[in-house]
């Protein structure tokens, strides 16, 4: 087990370096000058200013040297300074990440808490009305474009019915809670500011529902398929023959076996949620990493692009590791092998 972990961690380091190298090369191949994304028209025509900007971000160095500088910084936990925000990339990421983590975690929990039971019930009550509802929900969730769904729910619940709060993380009347984690739900609870907590929770409902829609569909469908397969297995028949309660058969015997593909998918879904919130963040004016990533990419902000690449690579690899390790808990055969 420990050897397995060491091998995995070593391969993770290699994967991260490869991922950053690929992104670094691609972003430097774009035939555009990053300085022109930062300087005004008059400034870009001023050689002294252009030279100063290039020198400040090491853009005057050969590409391979720039990459080595990036790697060297990485070893020291330094992602460099963003060209567009002009402050450390780590500070930027630490500022925007909590908003995205809060949103995607709620969305993830929502899709698991709703998706898994719905999938189980859909499988147990195959072809019942609930199975059809589950199918319809999954279909809408997977096929509706996020930007469309985001706008429809905003127009309906905020614009039309006026029962949900609008864009942003809090209403104007509320100040953000004192910073501890950056997660407004946690920070406001820690500070005992329950009105802020309620407001933050209300602001989370629409965007997290929109974000959950896609993953909810996937999780429901996967759970249903895996449960159907598990329920057709011999041990289920044996259990029924022994006279076990149907509930025990489903929850104790079929579900754990059905969960393995769901856990794999769930892990990936969480990673996708964490790194793929840009459209939802745009429509709901959510100050998260998605917007930051988008702006960094269009303005060729190399240090920021590299910092985010590193972060996304780490998130995917760590979640994959956790998923693989959790197999051992769900299926003892994995450890024995």
């Amino acid at each position, binding site marked *: 087990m420990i050897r397995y972990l060491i091998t995995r961690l070593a391969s993770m380091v290699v994967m991260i370096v490869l991922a950053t190298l690929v992104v670094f090369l691609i972003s430097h191949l774009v035939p555009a000058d990053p300085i022109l994304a930062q300087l005004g028209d008059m400034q870009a025509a001023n050689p002294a200013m252009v030279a100063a900007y290039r020198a400040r971000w090491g853009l005057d160095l050969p590409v391979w040297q720039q990459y080595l500088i990036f790697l060297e910084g990485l070893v020291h936990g330094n992602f460099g300074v963003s060209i567009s925000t002009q402050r450390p990339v780590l500070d930027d990421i630490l500022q925007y990440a909590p908003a995205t983590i809060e949103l995607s975690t709620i969305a993830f929990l929502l899709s698991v808490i709703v998706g898994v039971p719905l999938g189980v019930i859909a499988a147990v009550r195959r072809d019942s009305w609930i199975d059809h509802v589950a199918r319809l929900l999954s279909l809408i969730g997977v096929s509706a474009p996020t930007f469309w769904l985001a706008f429809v729910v905003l127009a309906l619940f905020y614009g039309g019915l006026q029962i949900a709060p609008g864009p942003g993380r809090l209403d*104007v009347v509320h100040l953000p809670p004192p910073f501890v984690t950056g997660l407004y739900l946690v920070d406001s609870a820690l500070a005992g500011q329950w009105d802020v907590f309620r407001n933050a929770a209300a602001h989370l409902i629409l965007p997290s529902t929109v974000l959950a829609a896609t993953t909810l569909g996937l999780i429901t469908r996967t759970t249903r398929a895996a449960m159907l397969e598990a329920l057709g297995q011999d041990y289920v028949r044996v259990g029924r023959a022994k006279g076990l309660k149907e509930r025990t058969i489903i929850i104790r015997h079929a579900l754990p076996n059905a969960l393995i593909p769901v856990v794999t998918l769930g892990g990936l879904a969480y990673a996708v949620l964490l790194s793929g919130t840009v459209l939802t963040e*745009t429509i709901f004016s959510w100050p998260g990493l998605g*917007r930051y990533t988008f702006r960094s990419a269009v303005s060729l902000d190399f240090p920021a692009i590299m910092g985010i690449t590193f972060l996304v690579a780490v998130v995917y690899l760590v979640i994959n590791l956790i998923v693989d390790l959790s197999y051992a808990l769900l299926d003892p055969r994995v450890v024995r092998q």
Partner: protein
Amino acid sequence: MPGLRTIAREKSGRSALRMLVGGLVVAAFAAMAPAQAQDKQVLVLGVDISDARNFDPARMADYSSPITNGAVYDSLVTQKPGAYEDVVPSLATGWERLDDGQRIRFTLRDDVKFWDGSPLTAEDVKFSLDRLLNVKDQPAVYAQNLEKTEVVDEHTVDLYIKNPAEPIMINLAAPAFAIYSRAMTEAQGGVSTPGAEQEDKATQWLNQNSAGTGPYHMVQWERNAQIMLQKNPHYWGGEVPFERVVIRHIGDSAAQLLALENGDIDAAFNLTTEQLATLEDSADIDIARGLSLDYVYMTLTSSPELNEALGKTENRLAVAHAIDYDGIIEHLMGGNAVRPVNFLPIGVGGSTEELLERIGYREDLDKSRELLAAAGNPDGFSFQLSYANAAIVGTSYQLLAQKIQSDLARVGITVELNPMDQVQLRTQYTGGETQSVITFWNPPSPEPQLWASASIERVAKRVRWEVPQEVKDVVAAAGAEPEPAKRAELYTEYTEMLQAQGNYILLFQPIYRIATSQAIEDFNLTAAGWQVQMGDIKPSQ
């Protein structure tokens, strides 16, 4: 099987009902949010502020940040909305030119206090302008003609000018020339002496706070979320109407419209032409209008190597006479734009709609065909038109390019559309590698010389126009001319020279429109650089 389908249909009917119930449950949960009490102590503006990088006057170079800086800082002089040919007193009550114009002596008001209650003196003016020069960030480029600043006495300060023939007064009204407190800034690590480039540490503080004399002062900036301003209790311009101003980031225009209709914001800054059209007849929403000094223009290269046909002046002029300008303004801008003759927008340097009537290009297909024949291309020619994949003042470059493509096809000119990423476009365009582009111009200040010199220097290089000395002389003479009528005449002469050249085709100059709620009034837009006169806005009586 048919039986199954019937059952499925029946069941999906019921499932729709369940979904509705489910939706209502979610909605009920959402209703836990407290209703937005509209407190008229607070002004809330909905703006896309995602471009904001910093608010330090010595470093600021973005589009939305001057909305804030215009409300928290004053400069020595200012400009009234619509009157961009001249400046009026602000922190300075008067000024005089000394030593053949090499020195301008400013007399300061003696009743001005910063928001912290300390008085404004000539030391603060010197500190602010020195810091602008020595921090050497983007705004310093606008101060290239400023040599140094000297304190004469507590309320008198001299600005030394490098070249008196180059205009400077209008630049001084721009947000880059904001005056701020030396004491407050130095306490946060601010440095104004040579070396400030490396030593100055005040930017971080100035991004969250302000140190100015404006009607409000900044108390918070949460990136991509909001900016909060507080009333300046010591404001020299009288009682300030709101306790607080919140500039709320709402990036999506449709969400801005919803927030305005719900009363969560008092003004929506970034609505599209179609969204504004739906508000035209609204009883609850007003639309504030202001002619901008921005414009969208098209270039044509002079270089035969890039495009042989465009290398001939007649062919460029043939393009200029085959565009349906009125159609662009009417259909793409909903009529909310004007068109300047050439590089000077309407409102500066004597550029007016009458001048357009007199010497502007007009749609004239016969003339266009004649020009093509004279150039030896009677059947037309083809060229590549590059533009950014982006939205622009309520429409998009793509739509504009398609419109021009179909217009030019009428005289046999084939346009090959070449959309690309914005930074990539800028790289090619500033490198002088494009045959033709459609792009946007947004001035740092309404000084006509800024447009004129650009058009014969850096932009001329992009279209590969070798500018004759006589054109340069006319522009220099216009810049040095203090008498407005004579100055306008010289700029008109220069404009005629550009018209004969055919490298620049001005498409439109938008009238900016901001939708406001009826809870507020005196929402005056300005094109001087900070978009709105924040200090004017009041709760409705």
